[in-house]
Every structure is written in C-alpha cells, then in structure tokens.
C-alpha cells in the first residue's frame, strides 16, 4: 500500500460532515497556519514541498503564489478551478464529493497565504449535487468559526463562494474561467497580463486546481520538507489518478509517484488488469489532450526501461515516444478498440469546445473532425492522413490558449503510432465498418498478464 495523504480518510463513515472530519484531525492545518505562521512562511513551505499544479500543466504552486501582485488597497482573490472537463478526468469530483471539508480546509489556508477574503470555487455546472455538498460544508465550517469574520480570533476574514459554470470545457483554462466568473463567454484572455497581476475584476488572482489546494493541508501539517520526501525527483507528494476505459476496476486512486505503469494497470490494488482477460492495446495516460501511447511504449520507455507513473517518466522520450501525466485522467483501451474512432470522438469534442476566437483552432478542429469522420466511416483517402497531420501542425502553437495544442496532440500521436491502422481503414472501407484492426501492427511483444 502506498502512502495516502488526501484520500486516507475517504472511507470513514460520515467524513463528509464537519463533526467527523474534525474528530479525525481535520482543520488542524488552519489552526497551525493562521496562528503560528506568517503568510510568507506558508508560501515557503509550499515551495519546499515541490508541489506542482494538479490541473494538468504541473506548474510549481509555491512559485505561482509568490508571483501574486500586492498593490496597496486592491483586494486579491484565490479561485479554485473545479471545472474538471478534460475527458478521462474525474478525480476532483471524487475529492469534493467525499471529502468536501478537505478542500475547504485547503482553501482557508491558501486564502490566508494569498490574502484572499473572498474566494471562489468555479465548479462545472453539471456537478450540481456537489455544489450542494460544498455549500453545506462551507456553512458547517462557518458555524465552527473557521470561515467568516475574524477566523479563530486572528483578524483574518474569509468567505468561500461556489459558482456553477454553464457547460464549457474551455472554462477550465484559467483566463476563460475568470471571464466566466465575471458573467461572460468563456473566451481566454491574451496574456500578459497574467492573472497574478490582473485577474478577476482586474485584481491580482491565483487560480489553482482542487487537488492542488487540498494538497496544501498535508503540506502544512507535515511540513514541506517531509512532503517532498514522498515521490521521486520533481514528482513530489501523491497524485490522484482517475482510471477508466477497459479495465477491471475503474475509479479514483491516490498513488505515490514511484510505482510503475505496469503495476498501476495490472495490480489488484489499482486497475486490476484489462477487462475480460483481453490484451492492452493503448493508453492515454493523462487526460484526452496528452499523446496516446501503444502498449509497448506505455509500459517501457524507448530505452527499454520501465515507465513510472510520474511527470518525468511519462514524458520520457518527448512526444516521439512519450506522453504526459497531465491531469491524471488515465484512459485504457483494449485490443478491440479502434484508434480511428477514438481519435474521431476526441476531435469532435475539441471542435465542440473551441471558443472560436482563433481561426486555426476554430477551423482546424472542424476540419480534423470531418476528416476523421470520413476515414472512420470508410470514405477516407490516403491523402487525408497527411492532410490531418498538416492541419494539426498548423494549429499547434498558433493560438491564444493551449486548447489548440490540446486538440492537435491526440491526432498527431494517433497518426504517429498507429498510422498503419489509419491506412488499413482507407484500404478496407467495408471491412473496417464491421471489424477492427486489433493488435496486428505490433512489432513488439504485447504485455499479456500471467
């Protein structure tokens, strides 16, 4: 059993209530931080912990916090990103649903560190029932004196508000999220200015992911240095992974980042192996935006070393032979899955979610969807594959926000690693409608569970 810092109490009956959460040691970090530490000391602990943003980009949290501008007389805001809309990702939902007080506790400490008296949780609109759970937890924390005016007699005031989104993946991007919080369309802003200087209502703002803010609780409790001892290299602490697709045990797992991908997929503690005794074909290890990897490159790097479930190892080899840890949305595909169809559904997703501000993204995502649909339905031509490759290259790097890249990478990786499957679709327009390419093209042996 690996170390658990976030979900260790998730199965305690009644942990969703303040009473049980407090009895289990909850809100100690608020007492420690607000009464015994200065704001600079808190930021310093978070820096020492090596915590990296859990929303997908992996930016060091302590460093991000130290960038916040502090102009005289201008309020600052902390915003919690609970938009969670990257396909394959459902970890924040789990944390908020079962341990709402853990997030609230992390938010209070972080709000204190950043000087935010009004903190907002922006939650995807579809998570309506979780909104109620969070609002209930906020009321309980307020009644216990951990929120509201003059918290624990320290003079620090803090309120937390939950705002539901309206259904738009792009609002997970931090500047689109801010626009949405201001009651506008979710169009990402051109940076600079960065939110740390001018964010919500043009005030200095820090946007962090749910899991990032929850991780502040163990960091304060155990100290940044101790936290940094868990994990390996720059992958410190624990990470929530939401595993889905063709596995025996889909769900949310907290891992310390020293286990191998193979162990994560095949051990009974985690995914429990591929469903129905089938073989592993491919995996998208960090949410739909990151490159898909065929089984051989997933389990070992191009150098033949075992691949581990952490930031560095998953990206070993760059995009040529590696991928990314991303948001921790781990999507497993078995031997019967069609890469073309899977890529098509993702392309449709990005076309649907493009905000439409930049032509390469708006037009390019539409073209990619159409071409992929054409190939998938047996009407494709060989030149379509090259055209797809061309389009994704023209989107990447030429847009206001990273959604353009996020739409390009899955298409690029699918062609890079599974070109023969695309070609097979083109050459076999009828057969491809009734059967799958399967595992035919693997030169390397495929991992078969013992």
């Amino acid at each position, binding site marked *: 059993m690996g170390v658990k810092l976030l979900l260790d109490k998730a199965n305690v009956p009644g942990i969703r209530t303040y009473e049980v959460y407090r009895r289990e040691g909850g809100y100690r970090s608020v007492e420690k931080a607000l009464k015994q530490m200065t704001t600079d000391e808190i930021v310093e602990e978070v820096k020492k912990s090596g915590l990296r943003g859990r929303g997908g980009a992996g930016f060091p949290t302590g460093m991000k916090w130290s960038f916040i501008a502090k102009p005289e007389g201008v309020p600052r805001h902390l915003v919690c990103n609970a938009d969670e809309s990257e*396909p394959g990702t459902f970890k924040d939902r789990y944390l908020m649903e079962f341990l709402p007080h853990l997030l609230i506790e992390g938010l209070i400490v972080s709000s204190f560190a950043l000087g935010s008296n009004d903190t907002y949780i922006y939650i995807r609109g579809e998570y309506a029932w979780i909104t109620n759970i969070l609002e209930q937890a906020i009321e309980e924390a307020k009644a216990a004196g951990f929120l509201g005016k003059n918290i624990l007699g320290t003079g620090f005031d803090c309120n937390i508000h939950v705002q539901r989104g*309206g259904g738009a*993946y792009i609002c997970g991007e931090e500047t689109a999220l801010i626009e949405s919080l201001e009651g506008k369309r979710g169009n990402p802003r051109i940076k600079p200015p960065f939110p740390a200087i001018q964010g919500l209502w043009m005030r200095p703002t820090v946007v962090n992911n749910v899991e990032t803010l929850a991780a502040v609780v163990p960091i304060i409790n155990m100290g940044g240095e101790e936290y940094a001892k868990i994990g390996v290299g720059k992958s410190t602490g624990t990470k929530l992974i939401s595993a*889905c697709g063709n596995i025996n045990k889909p769900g949310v797992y907290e891992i310390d980042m020293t286990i191998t991908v193979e162990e994560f997929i095949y051990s009974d503690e985690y995914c429990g192996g591929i469903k129905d005794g089938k073989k592993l074909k491919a995996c998208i290890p960090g949410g739909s935006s990151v490159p898909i990897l065929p089984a051989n490159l997933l389990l070992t790097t191009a150098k033949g070393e075992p691949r581990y479930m952490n930031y560095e190892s998953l990206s070993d080899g760059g995009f040529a032979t590696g991928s990314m840890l991303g948001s921790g949305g781990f999507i497993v595909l078995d031997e019967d899955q069609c890469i073309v169809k899977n890529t098509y559904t993702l392309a449709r997703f990005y076309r649907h*979610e493009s905000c439409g501000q930049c032509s390469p993204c708006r037009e390019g995502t539409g073209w990619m969807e159409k071409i992929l649909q054409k190939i998938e339905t047996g009407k494709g031509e060989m030149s379509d594959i090259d055209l797809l490759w061309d389009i994704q290259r023209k989107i990447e790097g030429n847009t206001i926000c990273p959604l353009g890249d996020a739409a390009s990478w899955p298409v690029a990786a699918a062609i890079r690693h599974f070109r023969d499957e695309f070609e097979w679709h083109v050459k076999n327009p009828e057969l491809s409608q009734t059967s799958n390419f399967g595992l035919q093209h693997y030169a390397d042996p495929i991992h078969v569970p013992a």
Partner: protein
Amino acid sequence: MATTFNDIQMTEFKRLVARYPEGKQKSALLPALHLAQESFGGWLSTEALDYVASLLQIEPIEVYEVATFYSMYNLKPVGKFVFEVCQTGPCMISGSDNIIDYIKKTLDIKPGETTKDGMFTLKLVECLGACGYAPMMQVGKIYKEHLTKEKVDSIIAEYRAQATNN
C-alpha cells in the same frame, strides 16, 4: 409559464448576487440563468433572458451572448426529462453507442428530439466527468451511471411514474 421569479426564487437570486462585490453583479449571470431555467420550465425564452438582464441591470445582448455560448442552457423547449448521454472517447470505448441506440429505439426519437407526449428529450453531450462509471447520462441534476439496457428501461419507467404521481 410565468417568466418572473416567485418569492422563493427571488430570495435565491438575491443570495447569488450578494456573493460578488458592489457593481460586479454581472458575475451572477451564469447562476442566475440556471435559476431561471429551473424556474421557467427547463428552458430559456427570449422573455426569460430579457428578464434576467433587467434584474442584473445589464444589456439583453450581454445575456444572449452568454446563453448561446454554454451548452447547459436550452434555448428551445425541451421534454419534462432530458436524457443527456455522454458520447466522448472514454464512454464510447465503454459501450455508449449501444446505450444511445437503445434509447433512440425505445423512445423512438433521434438526438435533439422530444417524444410526442413531451416527456423525454434525447441529447448527446460531451464528457461529463463520469468516465469511470460509463456509460452514463445526466437527467436534470442527477447522474445515471453504469448504464445497461435494463437500467435504461427502469429509468424510463421511474420517470414515467414520477410524472403521473405529480
């Protein structure tokens, strides 16, 4: 259907606006639209959008551009219960196609359509953050997960019964 809030709805509206600083009441627009949609029969007519604009003291166009951007706001009437079935990658590889076909056949409607009795609307949507519990759909504020044909049957029966009991 009325397009003004009753007392309870108005209290909730005021609570939403109070979360933002003075003069930043436009920030309450998304939550206010959710409230309006729930209060006015599951969709937002032009009158409803104009009403929200007047309450927030902003221009109607500011409300229209938001209402048309986000996928959760229905700008046309919908059935009493909307089945929003996820069709994105993770759900697709877990069998959402079969579920979508089954719902189409059982309710005899295509995506975007409503049954003749006005009871059910079928919508195909993108990832709802339930990928590990696939196939799945959202009905109102509830997620129905691990869908099978049998489960779809019982969900349809459940909502029909709910409609007759009300």
